[in-house]
């Protein structure tokens, strides 16, 4: 057993962190600062493009499609480094949605023609991807979706409504899930690649959210959308397989950005506890404060272990449904609790937006909901334990 990173992995992680610190904090055009972008719910397109130029958008994509061809562990390490160096969790969330919920399904299930058509342009950021599964009446029970795909000759006709779709307002390619046969339940769910501009596909205005404000989210409506048969991703009825495969990627790599954010919080909080004085001494000298910081560190250590274990398993081709559910649950709960602790340690300053500590809490809450709510993760864990 070896818990260490190789020299190459450490150097790669550091290079991503240095890039994030230098390029992903302040933009060159309005709104420039993170606080301004958060207030304006503004997508940091410049940051997205810089990530494309650095190779982030093509991390897991083979070199022949323009990617860096890194394994899951390297992807998780890169996401962790981004989370630590870049305060714009919304930008990173958008990147993860693009890479993990659209590129990865195409990579794992796409035909060669689909890979050629989409991956090179997704890697360069020329086109943005999204993943449209959730519906107004089908959230946790995702496979009960009602969007339909009816085969008519050499094409399918899609109808339905999708909601809470990350990237939808800026997306060019939509991975849409619809059922070809409702009676078959999960076995009728099928993925389709639908391009912006296709007649009948429309996107609502961005939804206003509590956190991750710089990641645009929207509703997608499908009204008699005609797509050719070769828009099917994988095979008809393979939608649940696509969804499950991509969820394992998401539950390791996406949550690595939150792990990185927790590390950033810890660095800042230690500094604050050393500098801030009350009763004639640094507040870090009060056990009530230092123990919170110790708890933050413990959470990071354990979150990193479980998250990298999932990434390591996946990099060896081992399925990790149990471990990825545990990781998603633990990292997100840790992120919420550490965000609360970071605020509490700063007292009133933590509560004021100006000091940019409360934003992490707003961003963290969503992590208990997306990628399957934490209640659903517990159901999965219990179920895999035979209950």
């Amino acid at each position, binding site marked *: 057993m070896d818990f260490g990173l190789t020299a190459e992995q450490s150097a790669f992680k550091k290079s991503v962190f240095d890039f994030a610190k230098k390029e992903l904090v302040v933009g060159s055009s309005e709104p420039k600062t993170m606080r301004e972008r958060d207030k304006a719910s503004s997508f940091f397109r410049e940051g997205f493009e810089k990530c494309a130029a650095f190779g982030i958008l093509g991390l897991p994509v083979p070199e022949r499609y323009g990617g860096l061809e890194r394994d899951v562990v390297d992807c998780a390490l890169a996401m962790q480094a981004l989370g630590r160096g870049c305060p714009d969790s919304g930008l990173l969330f958008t990147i993860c949605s693009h890479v993990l919920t659209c590129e990865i399904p195409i990579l794992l299930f796409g035909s060669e023609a689909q890979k050629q058509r989409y991956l090179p342009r997704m890697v360069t950021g020329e086109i943005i991807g999204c993943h449209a599964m959730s519906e107004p009446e089908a959230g946790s029970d995702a496979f009960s979706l009602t969007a339909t795909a009816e085969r008519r000759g050499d094409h399918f006709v899609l109808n339905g409504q999708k909601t809470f779709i990350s990237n939808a307002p800026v997306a060019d390619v939509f991975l849409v899930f619809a059922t070809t046969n409702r009676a078959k*339940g999960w076995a009728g769910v099928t993925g389709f690649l639908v391009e912006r501009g296709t007649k009948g596909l429309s996107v609502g205005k961005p939804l206003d959210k509590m956190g991750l404000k710089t990641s645009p989210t929207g509703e997608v409506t499908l009204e008699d959308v005609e797509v050719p048969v070769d828009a099917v991703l994988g*095979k008809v009825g393979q939608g649940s397989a696509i969804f499950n495969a991509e969820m394992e990627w998401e539950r390791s790599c996406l949550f690595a950005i939150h792990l990185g954010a927790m590390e950033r919080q810890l660095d800042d909080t230690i500094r604050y506890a050393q500098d801030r004085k009350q009763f004639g001494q640094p507040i870090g000298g009060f056990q009530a404060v230092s123990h919170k910081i110790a708890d933050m560190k413990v959470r990071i250590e354990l979150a990193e272990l479980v998250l990298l274990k999932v990434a390591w398993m996946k990099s060896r081709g081992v399925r990790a449904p149990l471990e990825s559910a545990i990781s998603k649950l633990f990292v997100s709960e840790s992120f919420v609790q550490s965000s609360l602790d970071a605020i509490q340690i700063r007292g009133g300053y933590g509560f004021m937006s100006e000091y940019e500590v409360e934003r992490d809490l707003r961003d963290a809450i969503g992590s208990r909901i997306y990628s399957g709510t934490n209640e659903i993760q517990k159901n999965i864990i219990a179920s895999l334990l035979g209950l």
Partner: protein
Amino acid sequence: MTTQQILLQYFGDKSAKAKNLAEGDSLLERGLLDSMAIVKLIAFIEERFGVVLGDDEFDPDNFETVDAIAKLIEQKSAAAS
């Protein structure tokens, strides 16, 4: 025990709905394979038969019946050996 018998026993242990299940019966129609049950079944197959199923093999056609699952397992075992 044959692969089919092992699978029939697996379903029998999991649910009363598997009573009198035959190798060619549709598992979906019998209500034996919902989206969670399939994740558990795959974990069982990988552990019990020592095969690793690729993401793209997680296909409803491969899990239609006990016979279909057995065929998949046997193909995987043959390819591995």
